[in-house]
């Protein structure tokens, strides 16, 4: 647990260094309404002229208090601006993870069981392609085919922009509970919107998940193959257990262990892919926010996004550690 705290501290140090040392420290806290004469007061308040350790301490203290600086491009404090877009990114990421795991794990298992036969070759090709495809390009192609071409051909097409159809949304307004629109619409019985929201999720989550799909498939396959070579599988078979039991009871639990670890890393990949995917699909999430900030030289927002991404990743890895301890009885905490 100590490690977590230390890592978070380390992250803040990096961001501090980037935003306060390499860049103009004042830029973080100035808004467009700040007057010239107010600047000395600001400098004093944030201790910007003091030695670095003090500056750092003040910086972190402000982070904790929720003052992450001001974003020029949003005309909003950084934290608030991002908090608004957080659910959108989460929904996209969760959708991507779900389909990656649901498709990737069974595919990896089948690939291992039918080692070196046709299904294995196909899934290895898919996995390899997934790992080599630029996600932003994939997103664009998906839009081209499923939105534009389908439309031209008269087929029902998938939407390519945003989270939902705004016109439809006016007629059937969605009450915000969790911010996850799929959940909210289902819970409130607003099924017309559910359909719309899900339709909007399909392409972006597919694009985002496609890369991780390859990674998960490969690790599942290789760890399954590794496990099936183990001695205890020989014993299990020698007991006369059916092949099904051997695979699903004895092998799978062991094979999931490395996969879970890799899934944690895959979350990192998803977070990294979010800016690109959200940009391509005009998805109103934090990633897109950060990308816009690039164009407008809005460093505070970029730094804020970095901090949040790190927080999410740390949390995800913590979850992975817990799962790991649950799966492998040899690990004790």
């Amino acid at each position, binding site marked *: 647990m100590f490690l977590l705290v230390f890592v978070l501290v*380390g*992250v803040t140090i*990096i961001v501090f260094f980037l935003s306060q040392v390499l860049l103009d420290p004042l830029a973080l806290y100035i808004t467009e309404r700040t007057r010239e004469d107010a600047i000395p007061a600001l400098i004093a308040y944030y201790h910007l002229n003091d030695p670095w350790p003090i500056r750092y301490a003040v910086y972190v203290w402000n982070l904790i208090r929720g003052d992450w600086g001001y974003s020029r491009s949003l005309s909003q404090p950084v934290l608030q601006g991002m908090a608004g877009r957080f659910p959108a990114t989460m929904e996209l990421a969760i959708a991507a993870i779900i389909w990656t795991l649901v498709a990737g794990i069974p595919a990896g298992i089948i690939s291992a069981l039918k080692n070196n036969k046709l299904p294995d070759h196909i899934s290895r090709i898919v996995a390899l392609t997934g790992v080599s495809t630029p996600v*932003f390009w994939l997103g664009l*192609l998906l839009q081209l085919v499923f939105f534009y071409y389908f439309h031209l051909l008269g087929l029902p097409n998938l939407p390519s922009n945003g989270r939902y159809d705004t016109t439809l949304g006016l007629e059937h307004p969605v009450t915000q509970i969790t911010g996850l629109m799929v959940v909210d619409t289902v819970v409130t019985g607003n099924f017309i919107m559910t359909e719309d929201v899900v339709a909007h999720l399909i392409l972006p989550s597919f694009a985002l998940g496609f890369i991780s799909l390859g990674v998960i498939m490969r690790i599942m396959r290789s760890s399954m193959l590794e496990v099936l070579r183990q001695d205890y599988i020989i014993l299990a078979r020698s007991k006369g257990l059916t092949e099904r039991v051997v695979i699903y009871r004895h092998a799978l639990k062991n094979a999931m262990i490395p996969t879970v670890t890799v899934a944690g890393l895959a979350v*990192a990949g998803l977070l*990294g892919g979010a800016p690109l995917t959200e*940009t391509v699909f005009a998805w109103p999430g934090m990633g897109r926010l950060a990308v816009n900030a690039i164009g407008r030289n809005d460093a505070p927002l970029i730094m804020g996004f970095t901090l949040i991404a790190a927080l999410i*990743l740390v949390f995800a890895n913590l979850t992975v550690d817990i799962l790991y301890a649950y799966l492998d009885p040899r690990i004790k905490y």
Partner: protein
Amino acid sequence: MAVRRPSSWSPAVAELKFAGHLLIQNKVVLAGTIIAVAVLIAAVIGPVVINPAVATSIYLPGRLAPPGPEHWLGTDDYGRDLLKIILLSMRLDISATLTIVGADLVIGVLFGAFSGFMGGKLDEAMMRITDVFFSIPTLILAIAVAAAIGRGLNNLILAIIIVGWPGYTRILRGQVLAEKEKLYVDALRALGIGRVRIILRHIVPNTIYPVLVQATLDLGGTILLFAGLSFLGFGASALTPELGRLITAGQTYIFQAPWLVAFPGIAILMVSLAFNLMGDGIRDILDPRLRR
């Protein structure tokens, strides 16, 4: 009785036989590797054959032409022949990728070797530092660093280098920890040979295999990262031929002139695929050796 046995052949030959056997056994990998090598050769030869001035030869009347006999892949919105531009771009992307991974390899190996060998507080600190790097997604950290150090192609390369070394450090450190317990290290110390020399001349060469494998595997991901960041606006300027940039430019015309987006992307995919296949092949060959 004189029976011809394989153990009488030199070990090196036997190894090569084994490696070759592995490679041929997996026909998919073999086919892919051949394609990969072909792609890379084209990328290297292309710019030599093609005049770099093509990049700036704007011919607006011919812009946005679809693929045809004159321009095999069509033309972009400046009227440049897309095939030639793509080939020029591939060179930039590939050399940037090699530079990045090469630099990260050197940095990572040095840090990892010293950290692992010296141990103690230095090692602890290095581990924590790498932990921190690992908890920020690579693309995002690269964006942050690039935002801090400024725009431009060289700065982008530098930013990705800064973000990428911790992986190699961790791998090498792990190997060094095991290696330094071996007897020959004590022997060298007893001879009075300095630690730096021991690390560089002896430890590193013996432990570097897994890192090399990882580096070749990383080439594919790195080019995706580089192209992705270029797509977002970092790095090269508008006219410079770079694959990510081409896609950004092509985005505007995606529905009218989809080839502008499709072909550069295919190029990225092929280079990345080539790197990945090479990496897989090298790993398969070296892996049994790693386990010994």
